[in-house]
């Protein structure tokens, strides 16, 4: 156990190092020397406080929250290949944001997030109902149904966006991008951090719920309540991240899978690891996106889309004989 804690501390240090790098990459000169030689009211310190620190915090929070949200979904649905992006959750949140942008453009960000969360929850609930209604012949059928549902919701969203000339705006939510994060534009993500903490506290319940409704009831837990709690956390986290930064494809899928292939399925033990690995992965991909075409930036959704889908393909194709 203490060896685990030590490893965890090293991993956390590595993430901190990445965060440090993230603070000092950018067009504006924010080196340590510039910070020390200028007064706090000058540009370097202001850039650091208004742009770099919020962005780095947002990356860490979003990475942790989305990875843990993916784990919760995998536990509740009892399928390794489910995450908000393969269950219609992300697409539903996008539809919610589009509708609220069209119908109530003046609504504050928090209100938009709540609408998006409501849509995300509805979409996820629809996904769960579909799973219950459709006879599943393979574990891989579950993400397929989810992706098809996401495609349908996405088609509706595209249809509306095309009619109102909002396609390019739509791209901002469907593709994760942290370049627009400033002080005052990311604080919602702290809510996601709180939700992640709640998930950690309730971890054992999700583990039990993952064993099935009958088993859960036998152990004296209210299955529906645990399910509702888990799905609400997932929907809120997804909505917060999509509203503030846009979706990051497969993050919630590959991080828990990679961690569980090393750690096993004890949620209480693996959640800290998943949070740290998620934060590190998001930080690293954002840094890569900022360096590749310096001084221009490549959105993290794109970088992670390439990296994440490559890892997902590896996860899928490496154990060809076990699935199917």
């Amino acid at each position, binding site marked *: 156990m203490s060896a685990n804690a030590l490893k965890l501390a090293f991993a956390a240090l590595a993430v901190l190092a990445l965060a440090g790098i993230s603070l000092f990459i950018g067009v504006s000169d924010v080196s340590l020397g510039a910070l020390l030689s200028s007064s706090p009211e000058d540009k370097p310190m202001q850039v650091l406080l208004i742009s770099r620190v919020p962005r780095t915090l947002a990356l860490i929070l979003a990475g942790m929250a989305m990875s843990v949200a993916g784990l919760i979904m995998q536990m509740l649905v009892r399928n390794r290949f489910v995450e908000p992006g393969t269950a219609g959750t992300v697409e539903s949140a996008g539809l919610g944001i589009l509708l609220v942008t069209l119908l109530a453009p003046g609504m504050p960000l928090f209100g938009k997030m709540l609408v998006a969360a409501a849509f995300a929850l509805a979409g996820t609930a629809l996904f769960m109902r579909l799973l219950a209604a459709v006879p599943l012949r393979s574990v891989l059928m579950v993400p397929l149904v989810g992706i098809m549902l996401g495609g349908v919701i996405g*088609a509706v969203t595209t249809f509306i966006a095309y009619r109102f000339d909002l396609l390019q705006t739509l791209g901002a939510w469907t593709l994760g991008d942290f370049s627009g994060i400033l002080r005052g534009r990311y604080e919602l993500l702290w809510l996601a951090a709180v939700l992640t903490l709640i998930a950690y506290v309730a971890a054992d319940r999700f583990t039990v719920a993952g064993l099935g409704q009958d088993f859960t009831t036998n152990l004296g837990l209210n299955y529906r309540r645990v399910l509702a709690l888990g799905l609400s956390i997932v929907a809120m986290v997804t909505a917060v991240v999509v509203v503030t930064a846009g979706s990051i494809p497969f993050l919630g899928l590959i991080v828990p899978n990679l961690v569980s292939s090393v750690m096993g399925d004890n949620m209480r033990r693996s959640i800290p690891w998943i949070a740290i690995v998620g934060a590190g992965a998001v930080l690293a991909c954002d840094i890569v996106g900022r360096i590749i075409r310096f001084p221009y930036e490549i959105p993290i*959704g*794109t970088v992670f889309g390439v990296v994440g889908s490559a890892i997902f393909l590896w996860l899928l194709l490496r154990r060809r004989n076990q699935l199917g």
Partner: protein
Amino acid sequence: MARPSLHPALVLAILAILALGCIALFMTINVRGAWDFVLGFRGRKVWGMVLVGHAIAVSTVLFQTITSNRILTPALMGFDSLYQLIQTTLVFFLGGLAFATIDPQVRFLVDAGAMVLLSTLLFRWLFSGGRSLYLLVLAGIVFGVLFRSLANLMQRLINPNDFVILQDAMFASFNAIEPTLLVVASVVIAAASALLLPLLSRLDVLALGREPAISLGVDHKRTVGMVLVVIAVMVSVSTALVGPVLFFGLLVANLAYLIMPTYRHAYILPAAVLLGIIALVGGQTVLEHVFGFNTALAIIIEFAGGLVFLFLLLRGAAR
């Protein structure tokens, strides 16, 4: 729902009459001015729609046969994303203006050639390991995300004017088909369909699933491989011609299963093709003369196809 009293050939005949009726209506409704111009202009559009309807219907039915699943479509194998990636790559490297003025035949050949090549390679590679079809389809989806991420990356880097040109190119349009392309596409699709003819009876066996097909003496791997090449050609050509309209296949394929009192591909395939023609030509007629052109047909089809999919799922038709 099916009507067992009707002979499949009779149903086909009725569908053929309906399709011809739609075409006649499309050709003659609201004609003002010179007939020879109108017939030539609309004739090209009908020709394009017939080709696309044929390609999409056949590819979807074939795909559902080899996957033994009625809710999957070739769109899931990442075809539309690959198409968008190719289009975006062209705009990215040539610029929007050059892209818009490039010789359509060259563009078509590049699009279709690249898609057939890449998708066949992808299929071949994935199928080399004896993996389950669900795994293949899921891998196809993830490849789709990979392609889409790359396309998105390039779309982020082009200017908004180029993006508008790209956006027009990526949504299906039946008004901008070049007559010379139609000839090329017709030849390619006819060749692919001819390849399919001797396979028809084997397809009926294939629909039973992998193990029954093998025990009945079908070379499963080889037949599926050939069918996949046909699918790749069909989807590539139709997508390169008018853009991604792949949800549409789900619609016509399932309608064909519903209407036809048989499971034989010799009847199902033509029925799906005729339904595709009816839906496309009829849909375009309604779009032009009722809604006055203001929405791309592809988006309406995506919408309707999506609803059909949900309906199928909720009815438990997904197997």
